[in-house]
């Protein structure tokens, strides 16, 4: 559906990672396989490999983030790259510098890769389109559009437990309308060929024409969880109460909060995931978040290996081009 293939080079290899959409299944599998080998590295006592020695990676964050920025930083350091963190919410941009000027200034310092988070959908595409030819851009979340490394680490986590994607029924529960994570997960899951993707939420939190994403929509959590192999909870943001999207957290939890009783509707070996940070008692009960089905902390652990894989792939094409 995309008009150009800005994230791939002429040989079809990954140059930027902006969105999962448009990437072939083989490429996702290759990234997951690479992440698997890096996962072993991160479990060793000396956790470094010299793949990106001498490279400079900039974490350019226009939105606050702790876990994503930290795991990107860790990933870069474990690949032996030099890392600079720029919290752009408090720096040049607030002095009126444009996004493009910030970008060109950093390019002038000979940076090799930008890891970008920005509140506007399409910001990573914009930066990739205007970046110098030797620079790779990794999208660490742009508006409501995409968060491809989160989706990849979720796929990595699912694969470690389920091995085969094809028979899986996956439910994504919560605020899909505003969620870049959900969009990227949906693309990843459908590219990897799961049997069914469900979205479970009140109508106010479902984007228009959800069928165009290839998902089935449920408004009843218990019905939606039936036979589900993986349930992915989304964070509910407090702002949603103000926009008349929801009446209260209380009612939301009553209808869409994941409790042990409701989880019992799913398959016995169901996996519970959440991109974090979690709101206990709003979208998920503590007993579930901390319970035996929960993979929430594993997701965080896998984040580093997956981001190492993405960085090393994107930088590899930068070398040869």
């Amino acid at each position: 559906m995309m008009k150009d293939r800005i994230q791939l080079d002429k040989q079809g290899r990954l140059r930027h990672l902006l969105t999962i959409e448009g990437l072939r299944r083989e490429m996702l599998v290759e990234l997951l396989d690479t992440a698997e080998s890096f996962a072993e590295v991160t479990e060793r006592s000396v956790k470094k490999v010299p793949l990106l020695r001498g490279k400079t990676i900039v974490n350019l964050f226009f939105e606050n983030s702790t876990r994503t920025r930290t795991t990107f930083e860790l990933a870069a350091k474990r690949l032996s790259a030099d890392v600079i963190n720029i919290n752009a919410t408090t720096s040049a941009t607030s002095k009126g510098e444009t996004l493009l000027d910030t970008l060109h200034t950093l390019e002038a310092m000979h940076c090799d890769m930008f890891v970008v988070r920005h509140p506007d959908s399409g910001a990573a595409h914009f930066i990739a389109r205007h970046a110098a030819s030797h620079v790779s851009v990794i999208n660490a979340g742009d508006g409501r559009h995409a968060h491809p490394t989160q989706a990849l680490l979720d796929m990595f986590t699912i694969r470690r437990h389920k091995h085969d994607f094809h028979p899986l029924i996956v439910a994504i529960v919560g605020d899909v309308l505003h969620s870049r994570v959900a969009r990227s997960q949906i693309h990843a899951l459908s590219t990897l060929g799961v049997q069914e993707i469900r979205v479970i939420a009140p109508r106010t939190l479902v984007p228009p024409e959800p069928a165009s994403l290839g998902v089935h929509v449920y408004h009843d959590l218990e019905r939606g969880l039936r036979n589900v192999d993986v349930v992915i909870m989304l964070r509910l943001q407090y702002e949603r109460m103000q926009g008349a999207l929801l009446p209260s957290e209380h009612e939301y939890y009553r209808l869409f909060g994941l409790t042990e009783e409701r989880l019992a509707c799913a398959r016995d070996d169901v996996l519970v995931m959440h991109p974090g940070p979690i709101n206990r008692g709003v979208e998920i009960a503590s007993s579930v978040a901390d319970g035996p089905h929960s993979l929430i902390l594993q997701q965080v652990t896998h984040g580093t290996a997956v981001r190492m894989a993405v960085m090393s792939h994107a930088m590899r094409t930068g070398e040869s081009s």
Partner: protein
Amino acid sequence: MKPRLHIHAGRLIDPANGLDTLADLYVADGVVVSVGSAPGGFQADQVIDASGLIVCPGLVDLRAKLREPGEEHKATIASETLAAARAGITTLCCPPDTTPVIDTPAVARLIMERARHCAYSRVLPLGALTRGLDGQQLCEMAMLAEAGCCGVSNDRRPLANLLVLRRAMEYAATFGLTVFFHPQEFSLVDGGCAHGGAVATRLGLPGVPTSAETVAVAGILELVAELGVRTHFCLLSTARAAQLIARAQHDGLPVTADVSAHLHLTEHEILDFDVQCHVQPPLRTLRDRDGLRHWLQQGAIAAICSDHQPHESDAKLAPFAATASGISALETLLPLSLRLVDEGLFSLSDMIARLTCQPAEIVQCGGGNLAAGKVADICLFAEKKYWTVSENSLVSQGKNTPFLDWEMQGQVIMTILAGEQVYVREESP
């Protein structure tokens, strides 16, 4: 003295008078003096060979931002009226959202004076409906009309409430001023920048539902039904809104409508975040595009306008939602409309009517008509001449167009404004 012109052997298409025929046109003192045969004793100062060309009234564009006063870094009256002349447009209506706003006769006069001085095309300002477009207090509309405003509009800014809307309509009607509405219910737009459909869902862009337009149209139509005031709807984007207007016209309400880029582009053009396709109202679905074409053909939509919005290149250098909306569109107005003829939507004459006499009637400016005695605003163009849109090929200061590298059909060869040749294409046709 203005030159006496004999426009020879062109295909004269003058829909206001039902003409589509090979005929000569004679112009003197800035007006058409005869069609077909020369008046007795007519001595031409210049004979213009129009063989192989279409000769039609100069185009009347109901909406073009000229950016002056206030945003001269984007464009000026001089730069944009020149671009208009090149595009065969002899009358431009400019919306009131200049800085300062066209809410006093002085601003309206300033704009018209500048345009007269440049002498490339006629500019008719639309006055503001409310002061500073604040949506609260009515403008001095009688004085704006006296100064030459061809209508009043609050542009794309909201009115405080329906009572202000109702009173503004009544007050404007007192002076025979047509109110121009950009139908949108602001609470439903809710910061959206793309059609609330599959593409916005995919790209994670905040969506504008169809109802943001249709709710506004339906509300205004109810007021028109009650008040009987002449009302014009600008820039329809949805088929449903066009249908509502068609039904109202069928019921005898004095409403008209125009349409612009939504005739040619759909939401799919914004895939990959193409900022040149960031327009308001947003590009809608294919079904909407086809519906708009249908109602244009049926006549419920009377006019095609450019909705020209020139920008400096920086205005488009940002992520999609953060970019300025709008297309630099004067110079593609006629070629894109010719495309519709090519695709069989209507005849060349019907298309020209929607660019000339029909918009002229909406603003009651007297243009768009080549009968003897009418002002000689004339466009000569080569219907089958092809050219490619590039930054260099555009005269407008704004190079922001999604049609870059598109092949366009139809090239203006000469534009005559009140009997004066304001544009002549250099190379031979």
